[in-house]
């Protein structure tokens, strides 16, 4: 399993990276591995706001459908529309080309409270 050192993580197997004033969000390598071949992503609308832990969309694989939870409250500023046609990128490159949304955090300091790469690795090992 790959863990991206610059990201922070949620217990729901999602990652969040800083990009200037914004945050980038996706699912982890472990999540894509568990889901297997991803065939569909359901996105939120740009401009929509969510509280921490709210469902913003769904990823669907040939095996299961999983909700996407935003671990930090904020407003969606961009969705990765290319994934609509190439959802398999979520499997091949979950931390870079497989980003799902970019958002503006309500309280950017919340990011520091997410799991560190080490803590996340530990969480996956325990599962």
């Amino acid at each position, binding site marked *: 399993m790959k863990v991206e050192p610059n990201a922070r993580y949620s217990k729901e197997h999602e990652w969040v990276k800083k990009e200037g004033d914004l945050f980038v969000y996706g699912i982890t390598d472990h999540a894509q591995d568990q889901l297997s071949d991803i065939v*569909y992503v359901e996105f939120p*609308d740009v401009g929509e706001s969510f509280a921490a832990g709210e469902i913003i969309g769904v990823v*669907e*694989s*040939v*095996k*299961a*459908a999983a*909700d996407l939870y935003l671990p930090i409250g904020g407003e969606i500023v961009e969705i990765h529309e290319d994934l609509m046609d190439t959802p398999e990128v979520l499997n091949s490159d979950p931390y870079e080309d497989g980003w799902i949304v970019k958002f503006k955090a309500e309280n950017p300091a919340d990011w520091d409270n997410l799991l560190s790469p080490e803590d996340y690795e530990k969480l996956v090992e325990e599962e």
Partner: protein
Amino acid sequence: MPYIPNTEANQKEMLDAIGVSSLKELFKDVPEAYSFPDLRLPKAVSEIEILDELYGMALKNSTTGCFATFLGAGAYNHFVPSVIPSLAGRGEFLTAYTPYQPEVSQGTLQAIFEYQSMIAELTGMEVVNASHYDGATSMAEAAIMSINVANGKRRKIVVSPSVHPQYRETLRTYLPGNQVEIVGDEDHANDLDELKAMLDGDTACLIVQNPTFFGDLLDVDGLAEAVHASGALLVVVANPIMSLGLLKPPGEYGADIVVAEGQPFGAGLNFGGPYLGVFAARQKHVRKMPGRLVGETTDTEGRRGYVLTLNTREQHIRREKATSNICTNQGLIALMASMYLSYMGKSGLRSVAEMCYHKAHYAAGEIDKLDGYRVVTEGPFFNEFVVQCPGPVADLNTRLFEAGILGGYDLSKDYPDRQNQMLVCVTELNTRQQIDHLVESLKSKGSV
């Protein structure tokens, strides 16, 4: 070994497990008088005698073949070529169940694929599912799909009062619990302009029927544009589906979802069912489409094959996130529809539609000449039209029945503002003689 494994030893084992001594004790709560009631059945008779009796009873029934039928309103009396029952009745088709295993279901899967392809062409749409139970449930599914296309954020359905009343009833039966508001048909006078005015940022879809339940054609110019401007979807109920042999496909005037009753395509009237729910949509919404979809592919050796591409997604993958509980399809009737469409071909279908159109217009013209009767359908219509009669339609129909005619649909049942109005349907099966007989019979009954 007995077919039902419930031997005395089995029973004793089960009774012992629950600590009951006998079957009698197990059922002791059932009052004695009801446990083995006296059934008062007639004396047993031989097979010859019972067949004789049943045949006598069967002779009391009438079928549409005994009448000149002018009843439509959602179920249509069209010719079913003999090739259809004889082919569809083959054991390989008749006994086939769900084609989950493509390796043993190529025939059924290909038939569904052909059905989907032909319906896509006919409706002018990009994707067609393997079908639903009937047109009414297709329409309710279309409303649910519209809500899901908006990710559940739009929860108002605007439905025209000229959509089949039973379809609208089915819509309301399907949707409670979804926090959905259904508007538009509360006032039977609402026309397209009034419906358009109801569209707003909370509207998931506008549902119209074209031709309408009253048979007339909608002015669809600018309709899709108005609906899309509000961010909603346009759902078109393309009933009667035979009209598509002649009319512009709803896909060409901007429909996002097209549903219809597929029964006219080779299924016969079948006492009201089983029927065929046609469902077509745009490619971009395919993931929100209910039901299953058959696709063409190639196997590992490069040979053409057919599989369920969006098969049991709702049951097996999305589960509690499923947006529809429809996982099955009306396989045999869809097969009959593909047989009908292949057998008739493009020109055959057009001929049937033209015959329906011309005969209906001849009938309307003749009825309109009668004293006391007036065709109230204004503007173009396909094969159904509304006649204002001199008295109650129910009374009129009783008299027509005696003359060997199944009269039209009594609109006052669903539309109290349409007293004495009959919805008359004419198909290719109605001969000139039948139409003239109807006109003559109406004339003599003019003073109902």
